[in-house]
């Protein structure tokens, strides 16, 4: 009885409700589907528009993908769509050159991206979890004021913080290293992370926390034993969001890292500037920078979408 969750107003809940309800619900869904197929959706205009949008959103990426496997001379001579009309040749040379070539060497930057991203996700999430717990379940003076302050920091554009932080890093002699990027990413992620995880924490029934406290558990124990296991889906959602944010970031990497420690995005952006016409390298390089986010997205799509919805609808 005490463990009945309060009916959440979260968006993720609606999908669950759909499946959880009984037989009459299913019938009405079937009916709806029947009405839908009979009604507007079968109109050729509607399907036509949907198909055009779907094509516009996929063909550009397909073009890049196909091109990255074509020999350099072919790329210069003809469009990628000609591979569908016969005698097409494919090669891995572009990837070899982009990853290990003398002037590109994206493999190094690939490593850098991982080295930057992993602490860039772990550290802010841990910090945000602790802060969110305190804001949700520990009573202390100034709590509401501080929470509103953290919440409103979300609107501050990173740009206002870059120059002063950079000059600090230079003064400390750590400028350009991984340490500054980790610190910066951790700081910049906190306002949104604390806010989101706080929302998830508030959805946990207070009776659970009360019960643990009556049993004599301290806050640290409650946090790790009671709340943490319940928060795993929320952490996964925000973790993926933050992973993609850091991996795809250009501004922070560009501002704070020296050349040997640059992430992929900065290296690829640089390539686009200096070797703008070398499409064989650029297409392969762009795809290398996208492969990890694509795998994460496809493998963990549910968590990703849920995290994003929670952030948007509640923010």
């Amino acid at each position, binding site marked *: 009885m005490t463990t009945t969750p309060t009916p959440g107003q979260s968006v993720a809940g*609606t999908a669950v409700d759909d499946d959880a309800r009984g037989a009459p619900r299913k019938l009405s869904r079937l009916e*709806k*589907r029947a009405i*839908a197929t009979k*009604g*507007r959706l079968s109109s050729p205009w509607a399907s036509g*528009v*949907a198909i055009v*949008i*779907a094509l516009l*959103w*996929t*063909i*550009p990426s397909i*073009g*890049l993908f196909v*091109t990255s496997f074509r020999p350099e001379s072919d790329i210069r001579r*003809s469009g990628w769509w000609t591979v569908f009309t016969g005698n097409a040749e494919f090669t891995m040379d572009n990837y070899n050159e982009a990853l290990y070539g003398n002037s590109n060497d994206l493999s*190094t930057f690939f*490593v850098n991206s991982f*080295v930057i991203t*992993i*602490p860039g996700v772990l*550290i802010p999430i841990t910090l*945000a979890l*602790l*802060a969110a717990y*305190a*804001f949700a379940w*520990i009573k*202390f003076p100034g709590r509401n004021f501080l929470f509103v302050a953290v919440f409103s920091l979300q*609107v501050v*554009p990173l740009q*206002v*913080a870059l*120059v*002063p932080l950079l000059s600090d890093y230079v003064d400390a002699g*750590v400028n350009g290293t991984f340490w500054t990027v980790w*610190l910066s990413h951790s700081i*910049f992620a906190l*306002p949104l992370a604390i806010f989101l995880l706080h929302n998830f924490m508030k959805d946990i029934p207070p009776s659970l926390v009360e019960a643990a406290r009556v049993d004599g558990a301290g806050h*640290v124990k409650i946090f790790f034993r009671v709340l943490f296991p319940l928060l795993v889906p929320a952490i996964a959602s925000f973790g993926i969001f933050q992973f993609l944010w850091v991996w*795809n970031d*250009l*501004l922070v990497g*560009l501002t704070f890292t020296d050349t040997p420690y640059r992430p992929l995005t900065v290296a*690829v*952006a640089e390539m*686009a*500037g200096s070797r703008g016409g070398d*499409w064989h390298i650029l297409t392969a390089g762009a795809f290398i*920078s*996208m492969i990890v*986010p694509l795998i994460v*997205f496809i493998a963990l799509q549910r968590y990703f*979408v849920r995290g*994003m*919805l929670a952030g*948007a*609808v509640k923010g």
Partner: protein
Amino acid sequence: MTWLLEPGSAVEKFAVMLVAVAVFVVVMGVILFAVDRPKRVPAWVVALGFVGVPLAFLAYGLVRPGLITLWQSFFDRTGSEFIGFDNYLRAFTEGQFQKVLLVTAAWVILAPLLSTIIGLAYAVLVDRTRFEKLAKALVFVPMAISMVGASIIWKFVYEFRPDQPGVNQIGLLNQLLVWLGIPPQQFLIGQPWNSGFLIVVMIWIQTGFAMTVLSAAIKAIPDDITEAARLDGLHGFGMFRYITVPSIRPALVVVLTTIAMGTLKAFDIVRTMTGGQFGTQVVANEFYTQAFRQGNQGLAAALAVVLFVLVIPIIAYNVRQMRKSEEIR
């Protein structure tokens, strides 16, 4: 110990990473262990153990630099002489910067509006069809990749080859023009349309977000409402106009304002595709140019503050709409 600051090989880099994570875990572990004495530790000490480090991070890395930037925006390019509002005056009156503001305005208006319209249309069109899941995933994928990657994808679509015999277009868009009998265009150079072609990339990225949020909102509309409307004879567009759109109004506002704020701060697309040349410069990229290329500290600080100030009306609109929709409920 130099390898901690300057790791050479991949192994050293991962080792430094592990050291960083280990240091973090140990520090946080000690703090938490210290406050977890059940023997009458005052609540505020426990709270400090939980929020101390995060708040210190925010104070050091966001609040303090923000104030410094605000202060610096009243100084000249080297930060030595106080010049009052001159930087702001320059940013708003000089022709070059007025144009940047104008282009930025076009971004902030067009990108959210069009992403939302397309996302909404698509969400409604594929709702409850057989291919809904796949159709949504297709439009959503651009959300997962970096703006740099998206820029390269589209730069390739816009690629231009001189219109000569024996020269084939390799960019899809120009090839389409050629097939239609129109001469190929330099999409990224011709003003003012080039900015429009850059905005397309932002729309391409953000539509997936709009679609996902709006689709969830549409599915949350209670069945009895749509049922009642249907009995009253509403169908197709009427249903969309009088039932769907009013029901998802709060979600629409959130989507519009979220994308507007994201657009305002994004500089990746402009930087990757044109570098801000050919009249495509926006405030976020001009900030970067002034701060790290031109070395004009004061002006860069002023532009960063302008970015911040421009966010405020968007937030205010968001909050006001939220209040309104809560009153209705």
